[in-house]
């Protein structure tokens, strides 16, 4: 590098008046941009991981607390208290014969609910911030790629964060329980397990993108009341879908809830002892849902960025 001109010490005055030769050197020394789709995409992913690393403790504390407390109360405290609080037995008998403890139902359910939380936290919240007030979204919208690539990148980054969250939660829901209350987890097909986890992560991230682009920032509180809470409570997190056959109308109604397929898909691969939805239905819903939400989310995203 011989192009460097004689450069004075960086300006010290607080207002920062640069010298003319320094500014001139900026133009002369400027590197030639050579962006490609892949390079820019990777740089955006690198940016997400830098942010994730910076906020790692806060992000994963948030991810872990709900499932941790749930298994603690339901798989440790309740069995210890005993008798009337033994929730698991009744709910599980619908699926298979024999006594299945509540922890077994909770393992896939809590992982699914955590995926949804992470998807929303990783995609929707930042997006709403970026679209509001200062519109910081313009920072990345000016990167030399089509806007829909930016949307896809947000889905991929959110899905990775969800996936990582699930990996952290898995041992917690597996190992936190009272003596003799261990969940009956038996992974027969690891490939299918990882595939379902990945598909569910993409589904929540694409849903997160759609929500982030249609939510009114001033009504963010509504997200919990109207989306997260019903999706979780009616998402077969705390009971298997097959057990709902006692309430036939509800069993059908909950099929519009994407959470159901995430819980049931994980149930099928993690705790096959429990009755679960047929695998083809789960896969169809997870992959189909991801495609639909990605399509819709990318459209609304592009429309929000380019007004």
């Amino acid at each position, binding site marked *: 590098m011989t192009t460097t001109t004689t*450069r004075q010490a*960086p*300006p010290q*005055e607080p*207002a*920062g*008046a*640069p010298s*003319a030769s*320094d*500014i*001139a*050197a*900026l*133009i*002369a*020394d*400027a*590197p*030639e*941009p*050579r*962006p*490609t789709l892949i*390079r*820019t995409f990777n*740089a*955006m992913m*690198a*940016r997400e991981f*830098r*942010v994730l690393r*910076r*906020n790692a403790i806060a992000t994963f504390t948030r991810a872990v607390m709900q499932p941790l407390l749930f298994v603690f109360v339901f798989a440790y405290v309740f069995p210890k208290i005993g008798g009337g609080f033994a929730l698991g037995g009744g709910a599980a008998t619908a699926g298979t014969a024999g006594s299945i403890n509540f922890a077994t139902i909770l393992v896939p359910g809590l992982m699914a609910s955590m995926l949804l939380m992470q998807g929303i936290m990783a995609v929707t919240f*930042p997006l709403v*911030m970026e679209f509001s*007030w*200062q*519109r*910081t*979204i*313009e*920072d*990345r*919208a*000016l*990167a*030399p*790629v*089509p806007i829909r690539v930016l949307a896809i990148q947000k889905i991929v980054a959110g899905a990775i964060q969800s996936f990582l969250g699930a990996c952290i939660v898995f041992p917690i829901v597996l190992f936190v329980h009272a003596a003799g209350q261990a969940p009956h987890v038996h992974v027969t097909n690891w490939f299918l397990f990882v595939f379902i986890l990945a598909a569910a992560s993409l589904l929540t991230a694409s849903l997160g993108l759609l929500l982030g682009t249609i939510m009114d920032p001033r009504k963010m509180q509504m997200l919990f009341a109207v989306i997260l809470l019903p999706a979780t409570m009616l998402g077969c997190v705390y009971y298997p879908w097959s057990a709902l056959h006692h309430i036939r109308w509800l069993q059908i109604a909950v099929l519009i809830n994407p959470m159901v397929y995430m819980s049931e898909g994980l149930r099928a691969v993690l705790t096959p002892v429990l009755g679960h939805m047929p695998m083809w239905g789960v896969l169809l819903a997870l992959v189909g849902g991801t495609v639909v939400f990605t399509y819709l989310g990318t459209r609304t995203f592009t429309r929000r*960025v*380019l*007004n």
Partner: protein
Amino acid sequence: MTDVPALAIRTEDLRKTYKTSRGDVQAVRGIDLSVSSGQFFGLLGPNGAGKSTTIGMLTTLVLPTGGRAWVAGLDVVADPVGVKRRIGVVTQNNTLDMQLTVAENLEFRSRFFGLGLREASRRATQLLEVFGLADRRKAMSTDLSGGQAKRLLIARALVHRPDVLFLDEPTAGLDPQTRVNLWDILQVLHAEGQTILLTTHYMEEAEALCEQIAVVDHGEVLASGTVNELKEGTGAETVITVRYEDTVPADITARTGLADRPGVSKVEAAGDYVRVFTREPDGVLGELVTAGSAAGLTVRDATQLKPSLETVFLTLTGREYRE
């Protein structure tokens, strides 16, 4: 690059109409611009004149509803990615990445434009030194003062040597010292051949920086040219005001005979002052002083306002400039 166009920016009847619940809002109603390479071009107009919408269309973030626009020879609608590669944009809002540090804001922008890790970090260091932010490199971008944030925004727009640098109201809300510093930076960039399009609602900013100015209001270009051309073209006049120690007599206008002087369009006399609007100001002041002493009046103060963008705007729109 072989495709460097003579015109850095060109628009033809560029339009933007927003559909709202209360009907259509025509933010830009057919703007024609030509900015040559290396030019410092200013869009001057009050807030809400359509400047930001125009810059939004040129930087591909606002889709035109009519007309066409080319930046660096590329159609902004047909090839937005190509355009984005060739431009640097300093937005009016603070669009710094709030999750990143000062240095990271520059490094990642460099990487978005395809620079390698090491190259990006070297470029960031260079930019931070020049823009006086070297000691803030590890600070979060949210912790910067308004002036520092604006400098970082400009530095960020320059990571990849853009063909055209867009600045949307770069000095709005900054203190005078910081504003003058930014002016200095922009002038050096311009001297180095950087094409710049700047929007501003400050008359003096357009006058101090821009070679070529388009005066816009209500989504239309009212006039364009150099500052001098604008002043001459619109027939703006010099305004000379002389205040006396006492109230001027009613017939002072007749006594001076100024109304019949060539170039004078109007003579106002009221209270303690006489005001003359003229295209040929030489000698008018002297005559006012002489006429005053003849009437037994002592001059208290005298001002001579040359035609300015403000008088231009007044003549063009027939109303006060609303900032």
